[in-house]
């Protein structure tokens, strides 16, 4: 079995158990009423009915991680004031499989890759985890509230960033390997031949694509109106209800802003990276009191600008939004980025 495979539904857990022999497997699980990626262990229940509230980004790009640690040592008996500092980095990331994320989540990782890997100063922490992780995405049969993946270049069965794509074909799951890593995974576990399901899966996938809404007006241009984008009045109107909680950025599969802080005890310490959010006032606040983005509207404009103008400018037109809809679904104030971008694409509407 190499490129495709089939598993009856009742065999899915066997499949995950087989995978967990050689790798740490993360799969979506229901916790209370939210769906999160959890380390899979034998017999654990899966939850595939809807996309996880928080995608798998934290597996590859943890919310909090140690970049380096340091020891303070007094090595010189001649000079008791002198403190030597020893720096250390550690890496112990095991081979990992992310099972059951959605194609939009996988696409988000590709947007990260350009920032963290395709640069002359690649991020070694991100790269190691990315290299050691295999992504098995689960194609969506139908959209969920807020989804608009097709409008930003993705799709419910888009393969970008996935190593394997899994489709629910009724009596079981059809698997397609998309990369060498994906082939290796399919090879490593017993599976039925999938060839006869290929056509059915294709049909399900193209049906799903038709069901995704396009939030942008029909005659919208590809380009955003720079004039409207520059208008404070426009932003004031569309983000007045935003409460700057930053939930959109934490749940977003393409948001990656981070903070770096030091922590220490008497004789050792760590330099720690944590997710941060451009929606917070202090994100850009300088010690002098100067703040280049001092208002909510400037911060929100920067967030939309980053996804739809600045990132595409840097990376060949690629939009840094995967249309997963999480920022719309979970916004406590019902701010809708797709609506805002729709106005920017077709200013006549506003």
């Amino acid at each position, binding site marked *: 079995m190499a490129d495709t495979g089939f598993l009856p539904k009742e065999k899915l857990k066997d499949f995950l158990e087989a995978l967990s022999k050689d790798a740490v497997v993360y799969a979506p699980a229901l916790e209370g009423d939210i769906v999160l990626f959890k380390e899979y262990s034998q017999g654990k229940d899966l939850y595939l009915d809807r996309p996880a509230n928080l995608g798998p980004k934290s597996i590859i790009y943890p919310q909090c991680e140690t970049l380096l640690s340091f020891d303070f040592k007094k090595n010189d008996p001649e000079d008791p004031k002198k403190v030597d500092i020893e*720096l250390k980095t550690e890496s112990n990331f095991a081979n990992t499989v992310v099972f059951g994320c959605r194609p939009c989540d996988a696409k988000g990782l590709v947007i990260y890759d350009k920032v963290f890997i395709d640069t002359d100063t690649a991020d070694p922490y991100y790269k190691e985890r990315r290299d050691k992780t295999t992504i098995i995405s689960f194609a969506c049969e139908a959209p969920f509230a807020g989804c608009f993946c097709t409008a930003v270049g993705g799709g419910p069965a888009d393969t970008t960033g996935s190593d394997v794509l899994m489709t629910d074909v009724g009596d079981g799951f059809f698997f397609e390997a998309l990369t060498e890593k994906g082939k290796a995974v399919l090879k490593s576990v017993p599976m039925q031949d999938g060839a006869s399901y290929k056509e059915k899966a294709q049909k399900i996938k193209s049906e799903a694509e038709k069901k995704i809404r396009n939030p942008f007006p029909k005659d919208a241009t590809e380009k955003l109106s720079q004039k409207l984008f520059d208008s404070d009045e426009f932003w004031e109107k569309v983000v007045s209800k935003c409460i700057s909680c930053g939930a959109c950025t934490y749940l977003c599969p393409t948001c990656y802003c981070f903070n770096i802080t030091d922590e220490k005890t008497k004789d050792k310490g760590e330099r720690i990276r944590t997710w941060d959010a451009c929606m917070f006032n202090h994100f850009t606040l300088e010690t002098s009191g100067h703040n280049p983005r001092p208002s909510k509207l400037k911060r929100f404009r920067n967030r939309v600008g980053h996804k739809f103008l600045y990132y595409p400018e840097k990376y060949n037109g690629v939009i840094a939004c995967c249309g997963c809809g999480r920022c719309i679904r979970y916004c406590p104030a019902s701010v809708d980025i797709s609506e805002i971008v729709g106005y920017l694409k077709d200013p006549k509407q506003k």
Partner: protein
Amino acid sequence: MALNQNPYMPEMATVTRIIEETPNIKSFQVVFNDKEKMKAFKFQPGQVGQLSVFGVGESTFVINTPPTRMEYLQFSVMKAGEVTSALHNLYEGDQIGVRAPLGNYFPFDRMKGKNILFVGGGIGMAPLRTLILYMLDNREDYKDITIIYGARTPPDLCYKEDIKEWESRKDVNLILTVDAQFPGWEKRVGFVPTVLKEVAPKPDNTVAITCGPPIMIKFVLEGLAELKFPDDQIVTTLEKRMKCGIGLCGRCNIGHKYVCKDGPVFTLRELKELPDEA
């Protein structure tokens, strides 16, 4: 390059000398502990470095010695926040981390054969110092050099040793100013942008390089525009809250440009194409 494979890993360095420039600014002369790395270290005037006080954090400062003087790297630090206060508490001989060089640099090649006008205010003199020293070390490449430098009061002027030397040189036109009358001060009094207009340098074949507090830069840029300096002959170097220093962490961007990586040096023409978030 002092950056090793891991761009977050600082190079360990020793503070060899600390100079008290003003009541709240100290300069730190720093040498890498690894002598080979110090010898191999290359950078360009205007590039910055991140200094680490381990356990407190990292902040960005310009390397204000020029690449023509490599016995040590000098950083000037105004005491303002947590990291700068921790730096001010250091003694000579203490260990710090250095990640450098980061960012772009002054287009000093394009400035060859031109008159150079420096307009600096307060700690904003630090990046200008790098370029001034570099140009003085390559004096024949540049025409007239004019330096307008202002601070709040005379004790707030940095680089007093340099100032003495520049005042004594015939090939440097140094104009000092302080914001208000001060006992014993006999030179100019007035804000930097005002003095700039009084001095009224001609824009012909001249590049202006300015750095200072945001409010000063704002009015200096207006002043230079009044003096008819074209946008691509005005160069500034920006400061922002920074963390990673390598264009990843997302806080120092102005539009699609990251001040830490694509900057800190920009021409006014480049800045005008970006959102007004300097």
